[in-house]
């Protein structure tokens, strides 16, 4: 096998081929441990979200979701639980009829004759890999999670669409026109980057009450539409579009809005894509602002709903984890496919 194709040579390739120093080993150890530290809590929550309610609090926990097996035995109305029982030194699978103190009455599931009395110390439950889909279906049907999910999708979609339009229009004005107050307006918009929500949350709440948007999904969409990050990102990109294109369109008597819609916007697509990804992530994950603005349950977003849910059902981890995973899944999918855009977008603007 040639050097270039060997997987070992590929994995250990460093600046000086053939020599692996202590630094390389330490570097690898750091990276691998870091990756494990990132993955383990997430994967653990994911695996746990498939465990049945009875299994999830078992300690020490099993790695994979398992559940006790039940079987219908002829002659008994309710399904019986299966146990591995030691009978005369031979392990056998038997169904438990009832349990009295330290003894249990067991029958052979395939041949239910007279029950045998067995010492409970010698038996252990038969467990099989079981995926508790009810963890996912119950919250969506019995609790309000479908509503929360719908609200989150609505907010994310509408807010992202409006963010793209409103900020692209502003960026177009700030990049392709010379007008009085241009610089002042740009500085004014950018300066709001420095003002965190936490400082203005009380008066911002007052304003939202004042305009009648409190406890409404629009109350979390509209105040976040104008984004200094968005204006900045799109303006910097639009500056690179040659003005000659616009001049040529004007010669052809295109209206200014048509120039924006037909020429500038399509050429800004890569920057719009980056802003769209950011916007989706912001809205999907947003917590503090929806927590303040929304008060009735039917308006909760997924994040606020999850927070409320964990307060009410502090023991029902199977449901909480399933909904956590449901909220995490779209972000993970977005990340898997658009990882490059996101990282270069952040490295390029220094914002998130």
């Amino acid at each position, binding site marked *: 096998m040639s050097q270039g194709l060997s997987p070992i040579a590929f994995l250990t390739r460093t600046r000086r081929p053939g020599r692996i120093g202590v630094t390389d080993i330490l570097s690898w150890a750091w990276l691998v441990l870091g*990756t494990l530290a990132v993955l383990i809590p997430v994967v653990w929550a994911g695996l746990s979200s498939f465990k049945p309610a009875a299994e999830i609090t078992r300690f020490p926990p099993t790695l994979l979701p398992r559940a006790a097996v039940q079987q219908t035995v002829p002659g008994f109305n309710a399904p019986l639980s299966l146990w591995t029982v030691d009978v005369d030194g031979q392990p056998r699978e038997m169904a438990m009829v009832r349990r009295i103190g330290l003894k249990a009455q067991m029958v052979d599931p395939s041949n239910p004759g007279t029950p045998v009395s067995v010492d409970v110390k010698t038996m252990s439950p038969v467990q099989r890999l079981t995926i508790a889909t009810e963890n996912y279906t119950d919250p969506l049907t019995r609790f309000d999670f479908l509503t929360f999910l719908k609200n989150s999708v609505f907010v994310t979609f509408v807010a992202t669409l409006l963010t793209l339009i409103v900020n692209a229009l502003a960026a177009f004005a700030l990049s392709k026109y010379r007008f009085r107050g241009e610089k002042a307006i740009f500085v004014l*918009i950018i300066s709001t980057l420095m*003002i965190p929500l936490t400082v203005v949350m009380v008066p911002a709440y*007052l*304003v939202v009450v004042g305009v009648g948007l409190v406890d409404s999904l629009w109350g979390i969409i509209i*105040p976040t539409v104008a984004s200094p990050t968005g204006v900045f990102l799109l303006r910097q990109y639009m500056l690179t579009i040659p003005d000659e294109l616009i001049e040529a369109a004007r010669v052809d008597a295109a209206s200014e809005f048509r120039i924006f819609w037909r020429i500038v916007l399509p050429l800004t697509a890569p920057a719009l894509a980056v802003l769209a990804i950011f916007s989706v992530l912001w809205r999907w994950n947003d917590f503090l602002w929806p927590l303040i603005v929304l008060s009735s349950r039917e308006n909760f977003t997924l*994040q606020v709903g999850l927070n409320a849910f964990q307060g009410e059902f502090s023991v029902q981890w199977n449901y909480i984890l399933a909904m956590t995973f449901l909220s995490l899944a779209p972000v993970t999918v977005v990340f898997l496919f658009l990882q490059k855009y996101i990282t270069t977008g*952040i490295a390029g603007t220094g914002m*998130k």
Partner: protein
Amino acid sequence: MSTPKATDLGGRALDFVMGIVEAPINGFERLMGRKRMPYLFLAPNLILFGIFTFLPIAIAVGYAFTGGTGLFVSDRPFVGFDNFRQLLQCEDYLRPGSCRESLFWTAVWNTLWFVGFNVAATLLVALVTALILNRAIAARGFFRAMFFYPVLLSPVVIGLIWKWFLDRNGLLNAFLQMLGVPPEIFLLDVGWSRFFVVVVSVWFHMGFYTLILLAGLQAIPKDLYEAAAIDAASPRRTLFRITLPLLGPNLLVVLILLMIRSVQIFDEAWVLTNGGGPGTANSFIVQYIYQMAFGSDLRLFGLASAASVLMGLVLLALTLIQLRLGRKMES
């Protein structure tokens, strides 16, 4: 944005909608002239900024000087510096119990401790990771993506994932039991819960700072390292004489940014610690503001605003330092 070409029907529908939208805008252009168009394009943005960003800033300061429980400024009596006096009145600032607003000072001290540990830990972890990722190491893109992944998750999700991981029946306790260590309810212990709030914060945000530092490292000219190699400089010397001094400005910016963000710790800590517990061990300033204003029926908007203003001043000072550093870096 969906392209009009996606489907013919969708394209035609979009054209139809844009035709309706376009008409009044073109009418405005014919009436007012091309020179005024940028103002029209800026209008939606500026109106929204005005109402939802500038108006609150203007109100914020005024609000802090009013009392009562009314929401609108007109319903609120002017109380001068009373709110600030209430926040700042204290026999001994080191003992929050001796202060009139003991909750506020507990939150201030908790926040300061958190900022100290979190900034140091995040900076260290991010710097080491960035230095390693800057080496010609295999699967670099994979690792960079891996470390960055938590940055994209929601704070509520992160709080819950870690709460489960640290649960009495959680994975960490299972692991400790394998080593023969008795299980611990980490989030009900003052020391452990504070420790894990920092751990979770580092876990959550370090990827972001790693990315910024990595960009800084990659901007260092390669010929400097070549020259160092020719001089047979040791790796340690290269690190301390070339890499770190040239990364200095980036490090400072990251440091300030980290401080600004750490002061505002709320979401993930709130979820992880069930609202700042045990007791008030993890109650931070933003939580104090939130609880004063929205947490109970008291609705102490004036007190909350005064606390916001105080925190805002600290953040403003940090931001001004950051801007100065940024300007210095550019020149």
